[in-house]
């Protein structure tokens, strides 16, 4: 009972400190909020918005050998008699409507002039022999891409679309070449079916062009199943950041709250506590309980607040709860462990500036490397060297809908970290006050 009294007293003191409350709740939500507003806006319901890129197309393609593709898989479901029309159909598809505003020019010069006059940001000039070159197994089909040099994002997106398309077309040519090399002459009639089949597959893969173009995803691992994916791109960006902030500041709070042991020693209230008929074990237990409960409150509040404010999906209850418990235990025990090595609170500045920031950054390195697959893999490995990394790992597992067994393993590792930190911290504090 006395241990709980001590814990409640410590929590009262913690939550009365404006500085502590800001660091516990304000900063993590604020940082996440900054990213939220950088990548979208709440007013539009969290959709990811980019300004439309104005594209002027000069389709000069005169066609070539007749071919038909499966129109059901061409964005916009249009018939295409030439390769140029196929490109245009792709750019005019419904999926691209939010990204591209298409207009047409009669010739190449007119298209370039539109860009020069800044009436369009990109000109796409499909040459007259585009289809013929494509049909020629040794030919080279080229599209001219003319852009406003002062712009980057919009033209970059269009260039990416075209590259994807051209890659697909190159794949068709390779497939046909391979088919003709391997098949006997009686089977040449099937070449059209090979092309159609290839287009069906390659175009179907790019149906959701908006997602492909932006290529934004969670950093730690690919989603285990579609149902667990975040509902929009903005959340896919913000959720890991919020998770990282939650973990970083939970460890900050654990360390900061555990510092109250040293602070009470300096305020002389701890020696006074030892003069009361309260066993030392009870006093220290109360202090440790305060650290645990404070971090618990912080983690729960942040989880709920992030859900309500940003709509972040933390995954199913059990995996999220397991990760939260693991995070609370590891953050609080880490705080006790680190503080047990300090002589006084003045050394805490070095602690916060050095150890805590360094381990926190290492733990979140996977999130920072989210857009670089190779760096993300390396980051994921390195981050697991520190407890923060395991906590982030667990949160991302829960968010990505990974099975409870996977999350449980991560939680157990966190508990093992916690047990080690706690044992060392308690041993050192008991020794100190013996």
């Amino acid at each position: 009972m006395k241990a709980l009294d001590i814990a409640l007293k410590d929590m009262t003191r913690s939550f009365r400190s404006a500085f502590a409350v800001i660091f516990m709740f304000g900063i993590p939500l604020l940082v996440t909020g900054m990213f939220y507003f950088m990548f979208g806006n709440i007013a539009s319901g969290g959709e990811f918005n980019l300004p439309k890129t104005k594209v002027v197309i000069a389709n000069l393609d005169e066609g070539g050998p007749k071919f038909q593709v499966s129109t059901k898989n061409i964005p916009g479901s249009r018939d295409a008699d030439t390769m140029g029309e196929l490109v245009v159909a792709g750019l005019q598809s419904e999926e691209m409507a939010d990204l591209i505003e298409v207009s047409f020019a009669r010739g190449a010069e007119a298209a370039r002039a539109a860009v020069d006059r800044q009436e369009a940001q990109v000109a796409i000039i499909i040459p007259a022999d585009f289809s013929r070159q494509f049909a020629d197994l040794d030919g080279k089909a080229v599209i001219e891409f003319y852009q406003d040099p002062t712009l980057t994002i919009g033209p970059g997106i269009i260039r990416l679309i075209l590259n994807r398309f051209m890659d697909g077309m190159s794949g068709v040519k390779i497939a046909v070449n391979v088919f003709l090399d391997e098949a006997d002459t009686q089977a040449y009639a099937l070449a059209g079916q090979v092309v159609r089949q290839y287009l069906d597959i390659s175009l179907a893969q790019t149906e959701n062009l908006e997602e492909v173009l932006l290529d934004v995803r969670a950093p730690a691992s690919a989603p285990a199943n579609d149902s667990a994916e975040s509902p929009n791109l903005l959340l896919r960006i913000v959720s890991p950041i919020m998770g990282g902030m939650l973990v970083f500041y939970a460890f900050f709070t654990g360390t900061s709250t555990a510092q109250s042991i040293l602070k009470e020693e300096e305020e002389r209230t701890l020696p006074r506590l030892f003069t009361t008929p309260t066993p030392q074990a009870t006093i220290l237990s109360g202090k440790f309980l305060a650290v645990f409960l404070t971090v618990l409150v912080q983690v729960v509040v942040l989880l709920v607040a992030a859900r309500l404010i940003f709509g972040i999906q933390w995954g199913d209850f059990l995996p999220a709860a397991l990760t939260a418990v693991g995070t609370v235990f590891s953050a609080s025990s880490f705080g006790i462990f680190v503080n047990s090595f300090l002589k006084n609170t003045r050394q805490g500045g070095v602690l916060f500036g050095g150890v805590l920031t360094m381990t926190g950054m290492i733990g979140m390195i996977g999130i920072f490397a989210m857009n670089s697959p190779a760096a993300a893999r390396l980051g994921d490995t390195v981050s697991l060297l520190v407890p923060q990394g395991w906590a982030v790992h667990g949160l991302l597992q829960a968010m990505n809908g990974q099975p409870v067994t996977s999350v449980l393993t991560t939680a157990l590792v966190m508990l093992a970290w916690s047990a080690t930190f706690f044992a060392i911290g308690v041993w050192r504090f008991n020794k100190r006050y013996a």
Partner: protein
Amino acid sequence: MGHSIRSDPLDVKSVLGVVPQDIALYEDLTARENLTFWGKMYGLRGAALKARVNEMLDIIGLRDRANERVGKYSGGMKRRVNIGVALLHKPKVIYLDEPTVGIDPQSRRNILDSVVALKNEGMTVLYTSHYMEEAQELSDHIAIMDHGKLIACGTHEELVKLVGQRTRIDLTLNVEASRVLGSWQTVEGVARVSAEEGTISVLVEDSNRVLPRLFEAATRLSARITSVDIREPNLEAVFLHLTGRALRD
């Protein structure tokens, strides 16, 4: 009290109230919250705790400001809460470590009156102080410690007898004390001479007879006495007699 500090430390602590020299309170909690928390640490609970906290707030005169954070209190008010904490559980023995250091005269008077009241209630008070007049006013028995060692113990009268009925005369000069020390030690009626920080303390049997002789000796040595303070036998004189030094922190 019937308890061993070795085998029953918690039982001993339960009858002991400690008032540390430094303020040992939670400044971000109110006086009421502080008293309530410390009361719980002494084993008080529920209605009894609440009643005792209110009673203590009345005793220390802070009932009307009980819900203000201690950090906003003056030094004297903090001292009173500091003492109140130690009295919550009605200890049989209370130890006060220099409770009047650095506070205003009014608060000091309040604390001294409280200690006398506690003593009159039958509580054993262990009081440490550098102020000899406090010890003289409050104590039935006085122990003098120097360099961590007990050098004298007894009632006020018993200790004063250690220096006899000698009077202490503190003097300052317009020259270095060393110029007159040797001469004054030979003056008739002088029992002892010592100097510290520019003040010369002389223990004498009869100040009326000795003082003119000290002036004469000083004049012969071309020294001028710039101040004289005559102190009748008291605890400070006892300390000076026993240690050869004035009181220090």
